[in-house]
Structure formats: structure tokens, C-alpha cells
């Protein structure tokens, strides 16, 4: 009897797992939900300059991954905001990933992580759900003293017809789309970051090579500046397919 049951189990397993050869291996790739382009000017105050993508990043990700980055400077206050977009290619496993992974790999420690609703663009959704990270790393000032240097980063993912700030939800969307619709969404990972300059003199070089000192901003002030910037920059790259709002809004 045991031999007979073992035969049933072995056949069941071989035939069942063998169905993997009948499973389609590819899926239709949906168009991106963004335009891979950032404007030179946002609103009336923010002027952007291109930021180079390092060779290490290009080699580390799939070859058809798209990048665009700009550093925006407010010509009135001197504040600076970094905006970066990474657009995944066909190889979803090696295109984009959560910033928590790459931040830690770069030596940052994530001190706080929360999901926030920030105002969307007036012509688009009323609000956008975004993940806000506060991360820090120890640096030495010019006089050798240790200092905990902090940044505030906002990020979220924009797909062909979904938007989310959660990695788990993005994974769920991918599983759903492949199983139910047989398609892949082409995800864009948008990150907007600024430094918390409170307690330190942060001197940077502008586009002309001149040294400028960034204004003192606390964590709350830095967050407010970014949250006011987001609805201004969003319409410049977020695509609205045939006038339909993106799902989830």
C-alpha cells in the first residue's frame, strides 16, 4: 500500500510541477506612467541643473533602466532639492528597488520612516501617498568634530495604472497583473530629497562654481519645503493616459 501511495505522490509531483513548462514566461509590458524628463525650471523660483548618474549605478542595474536627475535651487532662499527618477526596463528584478536598501549600502542609517499624504498637483489628484524617510550618517566637520548629518527623502512608485508608496503593495500589483492580466507595469521610482542643515554650516557649489551656504533648516522646515515642491514638479513628468486619472487616486 505504501508503495502504491508513493507512486501516486511521485507522479502527482512530477506532473504537477511539470506544468511549469506550460506557464507563459513573459508578459506584455505596459507603457510607463511617466515621461522620463525633468524641466529646467519648476514654478517661478526653482532652477534645476543636471546630476550625473554614476557608472556604478548604470552597471548595477539592468541595461535598459532609464535615469533622470536634477538638483533644483531656489533662487530666493538658496534651498536645494534633489529629484531623481529611475524607470524600470523589461528585467523587473534588476531595475528598481526600495531606497532603504541602497541608502543602507551607501552608509546611511534610516532613523524614521512614515507614510504621508502630500498635496497633489491642482490639475491631478488631490493628494499623493508618499513614503518619507529621515536618514543620517556620521560625518566629521571641517574642525574634526563628529556630526550626525541628516537628509529627508520622499519616494513613491508610479506604474502604468497604479501608484503606491509601499513595496509590498507594488509586489502585490505585479503578482496580480501577471496572474490575472498577463502583463507587467513599467514602474518608475521617484525620489525627492533635501538636507537638514540645522546645527551645521552646509556650504555647496552652485552651477557657476561659486560657494554658497545653504540656509539653516530644521527637519520640519525641510519637510515642508519638499511637500510644497512636490505638487509643482509632479505634472512635469507624471503621464495622464487619455485624461483618465491614475488608479488609486
Amino acid at each position, binding site marked *: 500500500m505504501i508503495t502504491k501511495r508513493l507512486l501516486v*505522490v511521485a507522479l502527482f509531483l512530477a506532473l504537477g*510541477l511539470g506544468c511549469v513548462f506550460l506557464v507563459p514566461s513573459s508578459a506584455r509590458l505596459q507603457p510607463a506612467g511617466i515621461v522620463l524628463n525633468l524641466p529646467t525650471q519648476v514654478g517661478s523660483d526653482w532652477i534645476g541643473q543636471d546630476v550625473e548618474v554614476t557608472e556604478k549605478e548604470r552597471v548595477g542595474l539592468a541595461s535598459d533602466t532609464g535615469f533622470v536627475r536634477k538638483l533644483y535651487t531656489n533662487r530666493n532662499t538658496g534651498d536645494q532639492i534633489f529629484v531623481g527618477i529611475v524607470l524600470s526596463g523589461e528585467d523587473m528584478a534588476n531595475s528598481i528597488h526600495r531606497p*532603504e536598501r541602497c541608502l543602507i549600502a551607501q552608509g546611511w542609517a534610516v532613523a524614521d*520612516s512614515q507614510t504621508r499624504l502630500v498635496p497633489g498637483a491642482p490639475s491631478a489628484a488631490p493628494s499623493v501617498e508618499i513614503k518619507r524617510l529621515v536618514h543620517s550618517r556620521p560625518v566629521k566637520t571641517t574642525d574634526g568634530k563628529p556630526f*550626525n548629518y541628516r537628509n529627508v527623502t520622499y519616494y513613491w512608485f508610479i506604474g502604468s495604472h497604479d501608484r503606491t508608496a509601499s513595496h509590498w503593495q507594488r509586489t502585490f500589483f505585479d*503578482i496580480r497583473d501577471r496572474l490575472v492580466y498577463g502583463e507587467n507595469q513599467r514602474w518608475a521610482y521617484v525620489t525627492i530629497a533635501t538636507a537638514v542643515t540645522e546645527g551645521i554650516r552646509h556650504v555647496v557649489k552652485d552651477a557657476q562654481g561659486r560657494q554658497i551656504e545653504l540656509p539653516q533648516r530644521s527637519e520640519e522646515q525641510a519637510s515642508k519645503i519638499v511637500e510644497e515642491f512636490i505638487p509643482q514638479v509632479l505634472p512635469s513628468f507624471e503621464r495622464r493616459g487619455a485624461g483618465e486619472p491614475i488608479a488609486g487616486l
Partner: protein
Amino acid sequence: MNSSNSSPPDALSSPAALPPPRRVPRTPAAPLEPWYAETLVWGRWLISQPAAAALLLAFVAALTVFYGFVHPFNSGKVSAFQWMWSAWNPETHYEHGPFIPCVFLFLVWNAQAKLRNATLGSSKWGLAVLGFGVLLYLVSARALQPRLALAAIPFLLWGAVLYVWGRQAARALLFPCAFLFFMIPLPGVEQATVGLQLLATKLAGATCNLIGLRMVADGTTLRAANDAFHFEIADGCSGINSFMAITMLTAVFVHMTQDRFWKKVVLFAASGVFAIVGNVARLTSIMIVARFFGQDFAGKQFHDVSAYIISFPFAFASMWLASKVVNWKPTAEQKERWTRPAAPASSPAGGTAAAGLATAATPATARPTYDY
């Protein structure tokens, strides 16, 4: 030769009168069972049932082929086992991954006695569980999620046991199969290190201050109040590695030592506490060593061995202590003392003693007497 002062000879004292020694037949000592005796029994069974042995081998071979040599992931380049092996790395805090199959085999070997005494049977539910495992594998291939393929393995193994050998055998192997879920690297582990880093830093700082070593905890930095030394509690020091390992070890510990299900659940749920205790003890010891022997030595040589000489022993000690607490039972004497009725109040002035009791008119401060 007889002496005039000696006692008269008797049958017992004369050597010639002593009965000859009796030979007591020695019963041969029962041979000690070697530790591999149970395994030999299974080996003999397999040899006596070549068809069953071949089919078992076919089952294992099918699993190996589909998990090791079929490449449904990463654009058709990677099999489930290849993905799993690459995911077991320091970045994901899963360096302990290769030990999991070894522990699984040990748990199966440990369950041999239960398996030998199990009543053979069969349950069609085994096919349903097996079918669920197959479905998970197929879904993982379509959705490109290798974690789902790994999650299917416990169902495939346990479903097969349930169908082929029945409920009692499946019950004996339930924990070993469930233990295989630890193989799956969880994606959010990196974020968990943040909370652990902050918590470990705060607790270590508080412990140092408690023992008189003045420290300041600032985010994930621990520095001496007089700035003599400071340490950045990196994600590697957050304790996440030991957290995963201690959670696994706690699971094995409760399985092998606890008799009731609620005790297993309580102790397993507390595994995070054991890991934190171990890590806080380790960080505190590093600060103490830094105070007396310098930051360099504390941060390098001592740090490298501290997990083994401080972290794990403290974690195991707290695990053992928690086990003692959940297994504590009052002794018979304690029970009797707690359930003993209250001593009678002192008798009124001039009162007579009750029948059978020797009492006295005692003042309020005197100790009560009891009927023995």
C-alpha cells in the same frame, strides 16, 4: 594451632568448614543502543522495499530537478534554489540560511522514535496539501516570485507524508516541515534593523548608565559622556543577525523541551526579547571594554568575538530562565501552605479547650497553633 586463650573453634571460623564460593552465573549486560540504531532500522526497511525506496528517490529527484535545474525566474536565468542561495547573504542578514536544511534533517532524525511508533494510515487531505504546494510553485513561476516557490516546499513534503504514512507520522513531522519556512528571506528585514538599532542603542545606553558608566545615546550613536570614545551602532550591530538565529534556535528549543502548546507559543513569541537581551548585553560589554582597554580594542578584537562570548550566552540564559518561569509548578508543601485554612482566632477569656485540641488563650501577637 590453638591457643589456650582462644575461643573454641567453630564451624564458621575454621577455614576447612567454609562452604566453597558459589559461582553466580553472570547475565550478559544489555548492549547499549548506538545513536544511529534508529537510522539503521530505516535503512533496513529501505533495503527490504526496493520499489518504495526507488519511488522515494524519484520524489526527491523531482523536487531537486524543478527547484534546482528549471529556471523560471530572472528572465529564465535562475532556478528557485539558485535564487535562494544568492539571497542568503550578509546584505539580507541571512548568512545562517545554509544551516536551515541541516537543522531540518536533524529534526527529522530526532523524530524517528515517534515515526517508528506511529500507526500507519493515509489521508486524502495529503493530496490536497500537496496540490496546494504545486499550485504555489506554479504561481511563483508566473508571478516571478521565488519566495512563493520556497514557501511551497513545506507543503509538498508534509502533504506527501500525510498521504503516504498517515496522520500520526504527519504530526511527528509537522514542526520539522514548518521549520523550513525559515529558509525564506524576508524583504523588509533591512527596515527592521532601524528599529532594532535605535532600541539597542537606547537600552545599552541606559544599562551603562545604570552600572555607573556614563554614556549618551544619540540616535544610533553611543558615546561616553566625557567624549573618551564613541561607537556608531551600525545595522550589523543592531542585532538583526542574532535576532534571526535566536528566533530559529528558540523554535528548536521549545519544540524539544516544552510539553504544552501554550508554553511553546509563549516562549517562541518571546524570542525577540531574548535576542534583544543578548545584543544589549553585548553592546554594554563593548562599552565597558572600551572604557578600560580603549576604543580600538573594543571595536575590533573584542567586537569580533563578543557575539559568541556575550550575546548568545545571555540570550540562551534568558531563554532558559523564561522556560523555568513557564514550567514553574508549586511543590506539594507550597500548595498545602496556600490552601491551608486560616488559623482559628484566639479563644475568649476563661474559655475551655475544644475537644481534641490543645489550645491556650493566646495574646494577639503569639503564633497560632495547629492541629497536627
